[in-house]
């Protein structure tokens, strides 16, 4: 009996130690990634000023010229356009699903959202090439009198918008669910219509949450690689319109990994791009998560 007891205690200790080691490993991971990428991009940072890297558009790896401006701007264009398309759809749908929808619609929409979220990005890319690119080159661009192959910032943004919709929608639905029913009931009992209640009570109360979910969607969109890479055109030039091809940062990294060991400082430049991406995404994530958390505590 005594032996058995010691054995159990020992086992428990062993388990706890293993759990603790795993936990520490995971908690350190973001810092390890940060340091690892920084060390690799150090070479580039030593030879170029940060200002030159971020604010000039001269991209000639063979001549050791690395200006990231076209890539940063392309990323911004694609991401912001994707948000402009997806945010209204997400907000309206999440209000509908939490406030109006009947059970059978919920039963229908939940699998739809789950499957959209589960589809790999390469599938979205294939769909973009099949549907969105021809749509833009044959119908949308001629409507504005522009001639384009369809591989453009707009195509990237549409594909991206669809990809981040399930992600933002899930967060928004969770947020609207945390709004206490007493608040909406009080508003309804004072004679406000359902829509007035939503506008003046629900959305107002959920406002910080909505902003955070947009922030999270933005950081998700910023780092999306393959789907955007397949439809965005990949021309290293500062984009001037939505029908122009772009070259976002993730596509830059993914497209050039093959050559980066053959040209000096190129690998350092690509790792700098990854570091840049990591930091931007991290900043948006930190602020959005903090704001969502504060919001949850307040409610």
């Amino acid at each position, binding site marked *: 009996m005594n032996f058995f007891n010691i054995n159990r*205690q020992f*086992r*428990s200790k062993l388990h*706890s130690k293993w*759990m603790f080691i*795993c*936990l520490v490993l*995971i*908690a350190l991971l*973001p810092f390890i*990634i940060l340091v*690892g*990428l920084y060390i690799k991009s150090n070479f580039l940072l030593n030879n170029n000023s940060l200002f030159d890297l971020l604010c000039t558009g001269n991209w000639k790896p063979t001549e050791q010229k690395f200006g990231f401006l076209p890539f940063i701007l392309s990323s911004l264009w694609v991401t912001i356009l994707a948000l402009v398309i997806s945010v*209204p*759809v*997400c907000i*309206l*749908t999440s209000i*509908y*699903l939490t406030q109006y*929808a009947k059970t059978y619609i919920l039963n229908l929409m939940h699998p739809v*959202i*789950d*499957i*959209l979220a*589960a*589809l*790999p*990005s*390469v*599938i979205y*890319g*294939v*769909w973009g090439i*099949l*549907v969105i690119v021809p749509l833009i080159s044959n119908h949308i661009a001629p409507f504005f009198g522009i001639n384009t192959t369809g591989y453009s910032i707009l195509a990237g943004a549409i594909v991206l918008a669809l990809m981040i*919709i399930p992600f933002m*929608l899930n967060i928004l639905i969770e947020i609207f669910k945390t709004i206490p029913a007493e608040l909406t009931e009080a508003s309804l009992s004072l004679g406000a*219509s*359902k*829509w007035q209640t939503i506008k003046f009570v629900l959305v107002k109360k959920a406002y910080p949450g909505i902003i955070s979910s947009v922030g999270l969607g933005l*950081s*998700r969109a910023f*780092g*999306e*690689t*393959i789907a955007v890479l*397949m439809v965005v055109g990949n021309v290293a030039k500062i984009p001037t319109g939505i029908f122009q091809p772009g070259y976002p940062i993730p596509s830059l*990294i993914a497209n050039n*990994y093959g050559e980066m060991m053959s040209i000096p400082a190129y690998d350092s430049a690509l*790792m700098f791009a*990854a570091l840049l*991406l*990591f930091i931007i*995404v*991290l900043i948006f*994530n*930190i602020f959005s*998560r903090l704001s969502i*958390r504060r919001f949850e505590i307040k409610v």
Partner: protein
Amino acid sequence: MKNFKIIEENIFRGLMLISSAIIAFALLLIIYSIFSKGLSSLTWEMISQTPKGGFYFGKEGGILNAIIGSLYLSIGATFLAFIIGLPVALYINVHLYKNKKIVNIIRFLLDLLWGVPSIVYGAFGFTIMIYFGIKTSLMAGIIVVTLLIIPIMIRGIDEVLKTVPIGLMEASFSLGSTKSETAYKVFLKQCIPGVITAVLLSLGRGIGDAASVLFTTGYTDNIPTSLSQPAATLPLSIFFQLSSPIPEVQNRAYASAIVLTIIILIISILSRIFARKYQKNKINF
């Protein structure tokens, strides 16, 4: 005034219906367009053979190498992530349940990791590989994909473990069980459906991710026989075939996309079935 109120409500109700319909329609459109384009090229040969000579010029062969490679990669990574992720999730919920502050910081870090784009994991994995002198291989791919899906796994399991009532833990302690016994025999058992869902979710993510394996796993026409060999993956196979100018090869890319979509759909349906089936073993309070 009253009229305007009603008109406004109706307009917005219409908009909400439209936007919900857009989302449902988009899913149907994705599935329909990929199936209608690729179904004609989807043959048994395609999913049962490895690429033969001239496969990338439209000659015979299939994508078995990519299917098997993807399965190896994602199952290996899910297994590793489970071994590391489950203890962490249990530790957070059982051992640290009094230190809410530490738990919140850990959850915050995990959420941040979840948001890190997969291409960053790929680039990071690549620097590690260069540092240790490892070539592109199945092993490197498994490690990177593990890093990618660990936060999903832990947060998924954590979300279900959170719902276990404190009373159950106290009852277990009062009967004399140790912390780890409480963790594995009470908490884990109570949450099996949620754990399976989290595992399947991570598996789906592991199969579908392309950006992280681009650097680390390489690409080959053979089925890998050891961990140190490079492996083909389904998303990359689609990507490479689609960038070919030859129409037959492009059609094969669409057919490969069908295979990938079907795998993802099966995983998604399985996770629903499991979640429902094991729900009845749960003790309700």
